[in-house]
């Protein structure tokens, strides 16, 4: 435990809280790709009025929430191979057409899980080893999405279990893309990533910008309109 991490005796935002914070930020009618892991939770927090279309790498265009129980359709899954339902107006395409649409820039945003994000917009989410290149890792569709979505948002823990920052000046792990992240959502706040700088836009309830800056591995600007994160209704 680093000294900085002791600040974290305070409660951080839950994954569901972060998912809701992300979900409310989608402008109406956006096409959204949700990555494997934490991001798949975001689908549960959009409002019908937002008319968000969720797309998945496996060619599902227009799915709803994650399902469980015995009523699931075994042939309807999202990118995390979780059972989901199709919404009215859904369409299915094959994998090559799915990535054709992704590369074409169909997605207004992709929300991806993340180990590290740097102030230049690079991020790392597919390999935890820094060793020599040995073709080991789990990329999935993240590199295609990161290179081609109109925006890349990352959803992540602000620090490692040991308290080391995950928002950095430079990524230490191999990157998923050398640039592109515009927003980072952590358990401590909402950060924009622009012009090579992190800016704190919203902070977790009970936290101060200074406490968050102390847990951040890069210079942190504070937005003039910074405020506490509101849990969306």
């Amino acid at each position, binding site marked *: 435990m680093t000294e900085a991490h002791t600040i974290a005796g305070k409660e951080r935002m839950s994954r569901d809280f972060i998912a809701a914070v992300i979900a409310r930020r989608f402008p109406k009618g956006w096409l959204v790709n949700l990555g494997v892991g934490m991001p798949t939770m975001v689908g549960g927090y959009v409002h019908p009025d937002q008319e968000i279309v969720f797309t*998945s*790498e*496996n*060619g*599902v265009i227009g799915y709803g929430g994650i*399902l*469980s*129980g*015995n009523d*699931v*359709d*075994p*042939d*309807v*899954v999202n990118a995390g*191979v979780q*059972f989901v339902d*199709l919404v009215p107006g859904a369409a*299915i*395409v*094959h*994998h*090559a057409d*799915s*990535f*054709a649409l*992704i*590369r074409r820039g169909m997605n207004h945003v992709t929300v991806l899980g993340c180990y590290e994000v740097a102030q230049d917009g690079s991020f790392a*989410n*597919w*390999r*935890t*080893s820094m060793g020599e*290149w*040995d*073709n*080991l*890792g*789990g*990329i*999935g*569709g*993240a*590199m*295609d999405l990161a*290179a*081609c979505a109109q925006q890349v948002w990352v959803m992540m823990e602000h620090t490692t279990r040991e308290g080391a920052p995950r928002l950095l000046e430079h990524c230490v792990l*191999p*990157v*998923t*893309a*050398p*640039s592109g992240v515009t927003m980072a959502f952590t358990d401590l706040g909402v950060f924009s990533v622009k012009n090579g700088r992190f800016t704190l836009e919203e902070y977790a309830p009970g936290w101060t910008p200074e406490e968050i800056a102390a847990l951040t591995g890069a210079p942190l600007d504070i937005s003039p309109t910074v405020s506490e994160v509101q849990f969306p209704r």
Partner: protein
Amino acid sequence: MARPIICNSMAEAVSDIPDGIQLLVPGFGPGTPHNLLTALFNTSVKDIHAVVNGVGFPSAATDGRKSLGDLIAQGRVRKVTAAFTAPTHPSQQSIAAEMIRTGKMEAELVPQGTLAERVRAGGAGIPAFYTPAGVGTLTATGKEHRDFNGRTYVMEEAIFADYAFIRAWKADTAGNLIFRLAARNFNPIFAMGAKHTIVEVENPIVPAGELPPDQIHTPGVVIEKLVQIPPDGFFRDVPRA
């Protein structure tokens, strides 16, 4: 119409597969050709180069079904080309990853969209194309880069395999295939991406003419063998919940 061969069993469908083949294995949860993979496991075929989304794990099923992971665990897979060669999280263990790490199996890790497009290109007679995916990452290491309209792309070469195993929902005797919902995934492109395409079919194979021409996902002209999944076969993935 030229007709594919309709096999009587999965074993017959895979009976003439030699060692050393490059094999396309579709599936993304649903759409995995479990029956053909199990039949292949029950042969002695080895030195396989598998092209697959993820290397996976040995099957945990107790019903006898086998996966690519079982072939890998037996050392019968020489190489994998995949978008997932290891679990992303260090807490997870994978036999396949360990074999790759120790040099027992060769691996090529590629972005998923690049994997799909390389096989699509192979099945479309296109030897190479350019993509922005992976530029500036380790996966572009050693690959040719090129700028178009001010953006940098990486050149990727096509994959055209020896064999493809396919899982279809419906088929007719002309080999035309229809897939169901997200079970489609890699199946249509992998069906076109190999010299020898073998299909396991969930529903009874119907006479040519019974499937509407506008609803065919894969034209039968690329299919070599069809085999219906028998009553005791592995029909659907069981819901996990």
